[in-house]
């Protein structure tokens, strides 16, 4: 590894707000995230889900409040914290003109991993893309890119895994496979946070659920109908 990775087993979000000029993207968000849990983030478009993921990833600083990783602030940890964060963005973070293998090996080397070719091969198998390893990503379907992007995000075995709409563009079989993969990542001790609109797929894997509306967060109850029903009821209450 380039920087000695800093390990942690919880992330504490305390009263986090984020403004873009006069627009409020997050307002006083407080939540706890623990190792071995997969947290679902739900909410309408523009509710602040992606902003919260960016803040958790350290790519964006909050305007107010704090995020601590194992009790320490992200700003103080720098590279050693980023070495333990993996992120799958809505735009997948892949180079279309590189092959699947080249994408994985590039990021593997950037993270200073050892035996990168072996890790990349294993990731390609996990993404079920070993037969397309040397094809350019630009020739892949959305689902294939999505699978590759997830493996890229977790190639360095991050403690905190942030996923923005991971089920987008996946067929049913791929959604089931992704859910199984996320479950395995969660069970391996990762803190997984996933923003999604796909209630059915998320319901299979999440440990806890939060909703965001106009930048404000609230937790969804663990019981009382399907995830979609609980979300709708919570959003209705928040609107009242």
């Amino acid at each position, binding site marked *: 590894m380039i920087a000695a990775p800093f390990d942690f087993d919880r992330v504490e979000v305390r009263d986090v707000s984020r403004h873009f000029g006069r627009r409020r993207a997050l307002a006083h968000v407080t939540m706890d995230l623990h190792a071995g849990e997969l947290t679902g983030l739900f909410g309408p478009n523009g509710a602040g889900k992606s902003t919260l993921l960016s803040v958790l990833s350290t790519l964006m600083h909050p305007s107010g409040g704090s995020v601590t990783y194992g009790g320490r602030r992200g700003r103080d940890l720098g590279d050693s914290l980023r070495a333990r964060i993996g992120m799958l963005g809505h735009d997948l973070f892949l*180079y279309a003109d590189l092959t699947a293998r080249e994408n994985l090996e590039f990021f593997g080397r950037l993270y200073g991993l050892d035996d990168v070719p072996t890790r990349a091969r294993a990731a390609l198998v996990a993404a079920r893309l070993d037969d397309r390893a040397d094809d350019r990503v630009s020739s892949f379907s959305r689902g294939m890119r999505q699978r590759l992007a997830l493996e890229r995000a977790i190639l360095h075995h991050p403690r905190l895994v942030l996923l923005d709409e991971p089920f987008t563009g996946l067929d049913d079989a791929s959604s089931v496979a992704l859910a199984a993969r996320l479950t395995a990542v969660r069970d391996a001790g990762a803190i997984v946070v996933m923003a999604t609109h796909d209630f059915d797929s998320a319901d299979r894997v999440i440990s806890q659920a939060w909703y965001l509306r106009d930048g404000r967060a609230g937790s969804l109850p663990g019981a009382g109908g399907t995830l979609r029903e609980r979300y709708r009821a919570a959003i209705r209450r928040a609107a009242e």
Partner: protein
Amino acid sequence: MIEALRTAWLVARKDLVVEARSRELVYTTLFFSLAAILIFAFGFVREGRPNEDMAAGILWVSLAFSGTLALGRAFEREREGETLRALLLAPVERGAIYLGKVVALVSLMTCVEAVIVPVVVLLFNAPIGRAPGLVAALIVAGTIGFAAVGTLFAAMLIRAHSRDVLLPVLLYPITVPVVIAGVRGTAAILAVEPNLALARMWLTMLIFFDVVFVTLALWTFGAVMSE
């Protein structure tokens, strides 16, 4: 330091592999430069005789314009897949990412210059044979200065809606010293009465600008990319 250089090399190599596959930047900047030079040639060459002292200015204007084109597109690639965010999320010095982008851009522009300089020599009877090493040094030093500032601004503007307009507006005023030093240094070599000592002085100025620009950009890149 070794890690930063390793990271810079990784980023530069990745950019060059991507360009080798698509050849998009090389072809567009080369076509643009050649078109600009040809237009200048039609305007300033009469009956096979170019106006004196034109070649240096035309060469550097072409380099600056084509460099801007390459800069914009190079970062557009990073924006398309949001890959710049992935780079910024990696546990590496952000200055090393910047350095890698500069190295890739300088390599690319050098390839384009290897074609357009002979074209300028041919069309404007520019006698670069008097001091080919000095001309090459001036062009490479100027390219580094231009790429150093341009890479910083292009990265800063990656999320701006009007980035295509803003990039030249911000870039040209800042790189004026580089372009002036490049033009005057090259003109001193190509003049009817060449002054190689003056050209060396301008080369020294260019190297000084390069050091200042690269140092300032390395210092500020991490901060400007933090949001």
